[in-house]
């Protein structure tokens, strides 16, 4: 197939896609009486899911475009075979039935029939495998990247670390907006377009650059997925895997964790912000300045109020999903409010649990948080709700325990 043929067939399938979409949208109308008034107000989310979307996301990378094409190619072949084979079957059902007086005739079974319907499908399958092979080889080629980002899956958030290229050294965590988690629990979420997809810190990358994504995980297997890029890669604890993408347009692109990782599996979205080169440079500079300002000195003596205030935010972002905002836990999740370990005069037990986890991983380890963050969240827990230990856990205690 020549390039122009391919372009033409692609636009033809795109037309078909639009046709199919409006047809199916009409069919979905039948189901719309189910839709609540809330959902009726939701709009398509550019870079994320569209309302009643019927196909892949509009591709934002070359690879996704190839996959899109491959999908239509496969669908066309399968649909043709389906129509032909079942056309024959339903013709037979209509004509060769006793109620229309058809008498059974045994057919001869020449060997070429069986050979024919073994060999022809084999050839079709080979015809399908060839274009797929090309795409696999391309999507596995992670060499010559412009920027390398390490993505760490954690229960239940993503950590991003810029390893190589412009922005090297930047690192941050990316967590679902806690408001959305509360909405989910309420059972009546507001009709926001980015429901369960809004994060505090999106991954920011420049447009048109080859970004190599290295994945790993802290606790269990997660999977980093951005449908518009045609990318999905498991993040496996103890192992490093990679994938890549080169976004061809700027904008916001969304995905979600795609490997069951525990109870908050549905609440660790991915948001990639693709910006122009200039915007990216500006973002890198700002981010570096902000990081420098935020770099906490763990040896400094902090006041109780300072730590408690800081701890409240950290608690909301990391702990409240399980232990609840009121510290009472739920079900098998232990309460912090009134807990003897939390309020113990010896800070050591609590520090150990936070650094190493407990209950066989039911309480994950939190060593990825900084010393100041850990000290702050412990101070918060010790002095909130009905807990009143009255003292602060100093970051240097955490430093010492890490040794």
């Amino acid at each position: 197939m020549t390039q122009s043929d391919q372009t033409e067939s692609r636009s033809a399938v795109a037309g078909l896609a639009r046709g199919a979409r409006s047809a199916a949208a009409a069919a979905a109308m039948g189901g719309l009486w189910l839709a609540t008034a809330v959902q009726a107000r939701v709009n398509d989310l550019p870079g994320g899911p569209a309302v009643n979307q019927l196909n892949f996301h509009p591709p934002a990378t070359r690879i996704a475009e190839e996959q899109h094409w491959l999908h239509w190619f496969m669908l066309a072949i399968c649909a043709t075979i389906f129509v032909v084979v079942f056309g024959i079957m339903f013709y037979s059902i209509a004509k060769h039935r006793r109620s229309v007086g058809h008498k059974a005739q045994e057919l001869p079974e020449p060997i070429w029939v069986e050979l024919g319907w073994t060999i022809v499908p084999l050839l079709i399958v080979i015809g399908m495998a060839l274009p797929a092979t090309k795409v696999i080889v391309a999507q596995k080629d992670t060499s010559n990247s412009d920027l390398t980002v390490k993505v760490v899956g954690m229960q239940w958030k993503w950590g991003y670390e810029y390893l190589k290229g412009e922005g090297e050294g930047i690192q941050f965590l990316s967590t679902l907006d806690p408001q959305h988690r509360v909405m989910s629990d309420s059972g009546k979420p507001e009709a926001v377009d980015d429901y369960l997809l809004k994060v505090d810190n999106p991954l920011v990358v420049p447009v048109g650059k080859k970004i190599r994504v290295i994945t790993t995980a802290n606790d269990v297997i997660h999977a980093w997925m951005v449908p518009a890029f045609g990318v999905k890669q498991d993040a496996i604890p103890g192992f490093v895997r990679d994938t890549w993408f080169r976004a061809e347009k700027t904008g916001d692109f969304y995905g979600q964790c795609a490997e069951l990782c525990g109870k908050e599996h549905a609440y660790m979205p991915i948001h990639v912000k693709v910006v122009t080169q200039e915007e990216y440079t500006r973002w890198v500079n700002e981010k570096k300045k902000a990081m420098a300002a935020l770099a906490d000195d763990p040896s400094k003596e902090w006041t109780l109020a300072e730590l408690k205030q800081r701890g409240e935010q950290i608690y909301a972002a990391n702990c409240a999903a399980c232990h609840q905002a009121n510290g009472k836990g739920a079900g098998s999740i232990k309460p912090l409010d009134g807990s003897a370990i939390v309020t113990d005069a010896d800070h050591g037990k609590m520090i150990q649990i936070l650094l190493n986890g407990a209950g066989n991983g039911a309480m994950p380890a939190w060593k990825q948080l900084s010393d100041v963050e850990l000290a702050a969240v412990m101070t918060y827990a010790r002095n909130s709700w009905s807990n009143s230990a009255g003292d602060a856990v100093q970051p240097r205690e955490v430093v010492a325990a890490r040794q």
Partner: protein
Amino acid sequence: MSAVLDHHGAHAHDHEHHAPAGWRRWVFATNHKDIGTLYLLFSFAMLMVGGLLALGIRAELFQPGLQVVNPELFNQLTTMHGIIMVFGAIMPAFVGFANWMLPLQIGASDMAFARMNNFSFWLMVPAGIILVASFFMPGGAPAAGWTLYAPLTLQMGPSMDAAIFAMHILGASSIMGSINIIVTILNMRAPGMTLMKMPMFAWTWLITAYLLIAVMPVLAGAITMTLTDRHLGTSFFNPAGGGDPVMYQHIFWFFGHPEVYIMILPAFGIISQVVPAFARKKLFGYTSMVYATASIAILSFIVWAHHMFTTGMPVTGQLFFMYATMLIAVPTGVKIFNWIATMWKGSMTFETPMLWAVGFIFVFTMGGFTGLMLSMAPLDINFQDTYYVVAHFHYVLVAGSLFAMFAGYYYWAPKWTGVMYDETRGKIHFWWSMISFNVTFFPMHFLGLAGMPRRYADYPMQFADFNAIASVGAFAFGLAQVYFFLAVVLPMMRGQGEKAPQKPWDGAEGLEWEVPSPAPHHTFETPPKLDPTATRIVG
């Protein structure tokens, strides 16, 4: 007739002195027909339990937001729905069919190891109870997905150990059942019933039984390593101790992919019996059907890693597993073509068994095509762990295995119970299930294409309409199966309905139609003398 019935069976109630009455008949059952009934009832009960769990899932997903269950319970529901349906419903149901039909089809007096047969069944019951009871253990049921991926399994509560124990028991039961089936088929065929004259159902089960023996120990190994990782400080899969979580997936899917064919090959066998009976023709291409079944079984051992395209295997690995997987389309296609050629120029009627069989061919093929889509590694990168996969395997497991079993039930139950089912009710059951099945699972293709991950307790608003439609369909489908039990199965078990003739289907062939309906407690106590086609008894 003398070859068919023992001298006691000829008098209606005489057999009871060697078939204990009351509860002893079932607890100490060694008769293949009784054990077959037990298997079928047990698996239907588990189908209802698994179905309830599925309805819990669909109720939660009816609307965005959490209204019915919390995310922990949601994960328990998806996990236990999968385990119970696979190990508790589909697999034992086919064993039930095998127990009832294999000795009748091959002219054997019973299964080869009657007491082991009893043991295989009664092992399933405690396992089923343990699985259901795991919901009431501290921390709830296992919530790591039915695939029990490490290292998430290390975080589970004590119910994980209970589930592992239950799966060990079920595995032992399956292996014993398989040995029994292989020995029965290879050693107890009536004289003249050569292998290549055997009914297709017997052939598919023979091959399935070998698959079971080959892979159940692999599953046992995987879950035993999980158990020692959890309690004995080993680190097979625990990365914290240098273990490899991906190794678990390799081992699991080396079991898991043949397992998929374990759940579909006997279904192919049933369809290969029902279609010729109602087309009033011989099965087209019998020999190629046997070879196709064997090829599928062999190929099933070299495709496991297509479940793992996103784990990041090297390019050559992806290519190999993609090519091998696509090859399976070829023998599967041969089967579909043979069935349609069997229908071609037939004299078809569409009683309920045939409706289910045609419905099976139509809907299962859709699942086959989505399987072909999934086999393409570059597309699978998008599909992996989305609702597309959920749609695919429900098209092959519900519309495949379950629908074939319904075909088999309507086809053979007159022989089991001695009464005909109600044709109108059977047709209502078929159309009701067929429509609600598609309403439930067809929209899931779109959800998957749009990127909705599976095992999600809550989802972005844009996915709401299709989820709502799927939930409505699921409840309708569940009700259809309750209707099946109350309106079709129960009346037949009570003997209500028109008396079934010895051979209710004029186009049916095979030794099972050479014995009266209901089949007497003991059949073929002396080997029958067969005609040259091995489908009729002479003399």
